[in-house]
């Protein structure tokens, strides 16, 4: 149900697209992929959650860890195409304070590239 659909690099940005429930399993997958790319030198990440319509607090707290790790290497994480329920959860958990959010991947690429 939950998985990373695609990881691609565009204009120095690592775009991770997911589908399904953003819970512990998917959160850890995102964390693993982001760490791999950080080790290779990438610092800017975009998380496309258009196919994920649900998140729990464990998933959100793992994304917080991803943000912390990226901050240590002066990197950043942005989100695009958040479902209302996910946006609300991210707001409550304070994620959106540290990350930019975009309504579409196109908009994010234009702003972050």
């Amino acid at each position, binding site marked *: *149900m*939950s998985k990373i659909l695609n990881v691609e690099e565009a204009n120095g940005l690592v775009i991770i697209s997911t589908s399904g*429930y953003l*819970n*512990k399993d998917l959160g850890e997958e995102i964390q693993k992929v982001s760490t791999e790319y950080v080790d290779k030198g990438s610092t800017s990440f975009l998380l496309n959650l258009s196919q994920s*319509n*649900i*998140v*729990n*607090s*464990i998933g959100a*707290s*793992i994304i917080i*860890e991803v943000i*912390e790790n990226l901050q*240590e290497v002066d990197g950043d994480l942005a989100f695009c195409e958040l479902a209302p*329920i996910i946006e*609300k*959860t991210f707001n*409550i*958990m*304070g994620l959106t304070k540290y990350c930019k959010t975009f309504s579409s991947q196109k908009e994010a690429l234009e702003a972050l590239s």
Partner: protein
Amino acid sequence: MSDLSEVYNVLNKKKSLRAKILSLSFFFNQNNYVFKLFCSSTVFSQRFEIQDQTFIKKINFNKVFGEETFKIIDTKDLLYFNELDGFDFQKNGVCSIMYFFKKPVGFLYLFSKNESEDKLLNISQFLSYYFDGIIRQFHMESKLKNKTLTLQNKLLEIESIFNITELLNSHNSNSSDLYQDILFYIISTLNASKAIILLKNIKSGSYDLIASVGVNTEELNKKMIRDTKGILSDLKESKSSLIINNTDDYILSKFSESNCMASPILSQKTLHGAIIAYDKESRQGSSMFDNFDLRLFDNITKKISLSFDNILLLDSLTESKKSIDNIMSSISTGIIKIDILGEIDYINSSATKVFGFDKDIIIGNHYFIIFEGNDRLISLIEKTEIEKKIIFENNFEILDLNKKPLQINLTISPVFDENNDNSGVVLSFEDLSGINKVKSTFKKYVSENIVDELLKNENSLELGGKEEDVCVLFADIRGFTSLSEKMDPPKVVYVLNNYFQSMIDVIFKYSGTLDKIIGDELMVLYGVPIRAENDCQNAVDSAIAMLDSLGDFNKKMNNEGLPQLNIGIGINFGKVVSGNIGSRQQMNYTVIGDNVNLAARLCSSAKGGEISISKSVYEKLNIKDAFTKRAPIMVKGKEKPIDNWSIQN
């Protein structure tokens, strides 16, 4: 390494504790120092894999450090450390204790072959103080972070309850979309890995999978799920939410890796469904649902149960209303309900058609306004309101919206509620305009009696007959054939139409049924389809009136220069077969039999202006004096001569 400022610079370059320690290790390594930090996991987050947990748990701080805060490792210490098998310590290495709220939680180890004990001690103590502060700060931050996280989680729970409430309020049907949305909120709020919603199929009694997250639905949909055993049976019994650690319900528990929570969806305290959430997630992996989770889960599902109950009730009400509306729309009786305030609160489609009302306009309006111009109707409604008695009115005239008069059969009844309090009146009425139209058209062709009988009893339209006593009258124009040959056909038709009109008016006046017109001959029945007190007397009176009417007719013809007519009439009474004779497409209501033939023979034997009657008629007359017995006549098919009486105009 020259002095402590270099160490300080290394530490200050990094923000996070992990980064500080990693940088410090790198720095000492570059300068040929051996640096190691041993610390309890209760102080640092497990995310920092820099300490040897096994070792720190084994170490006896008192034995190594005594009252001191640092230690230069000697041979005795080496032996002790080697026993613990934690790390390759060196003689003259320096260990400095790290405290956390005055309790030793670990120590720093620093060694260099090239540095003096004093310098090592100096650096080690500096680091010990530095980390002491950092640990305190880190701990406070961690504590704050955990508290914040807890608060955020509580906020999420509250938000979820709000969201679920909003969701339930925004739906007015049990759609699967609603349940799927609910499940999303439940699963994310409870940090569950998977969840399902089952609803009872009223027809089969088994439970259908309505919504799911993270569960193999294909497999589950193949299984028959009932509340006779397992989780659903427990819920049926307890009627409250449960944490289920072990269960024999293989079908519903097989998705669970740790434990699950199940909550009933109740309607009228009966199990109608269930929500099951599986395997709570934690940062460390799968964990167990506890009583706090259960309380939240129970709270959410109680809201769903309440809403489910309301939705069921609403569905049932809608269904009932629809059913009543369908019934009311399909009946031809017009129904108008007026509430206690005199406002119209219901009208069916038949009533709107009769009055020509627009339903949307009249609902909620007072009947004084709606029935404006129908003063009698208004006063009857008022009378019912006051006297609280049913009023019946047949052939009641009303005016429709276009002020066109209509005939209705009206009933106005008071309405009482369950406490026997008056709650308004209901008008029910039959529109007679259709019936009257049929009657008036039909009456041009057949007697009013037959029309009434047909309208009253639809079975009378079936083919077939029955034997009954009937009085049959024949009236024939004498010499009409030769007369018509001398006249223009239009004049013949004109004379005949006028003649028949005069005769039929009389026939209907005496309750006769015009059976048929055969050329210039009239056949009339008395006693069918409606029997009168004395059908023979009616027939004779009718015949006398026909002759009288013929006098008036002849005067009119004379004035118009047209020939006068002369008729003979024959009447007989007896058993005949009456009914609809013909085919389904074309039938006539008539009578057949010997007694019909005898009436025709009597007519033939009568002279112009004469009425000839049989014995059976004569015997039934109230006044017989006017009739004179004639010589018996021979009739075809009869062996004996037939007695007969006559009267001359």
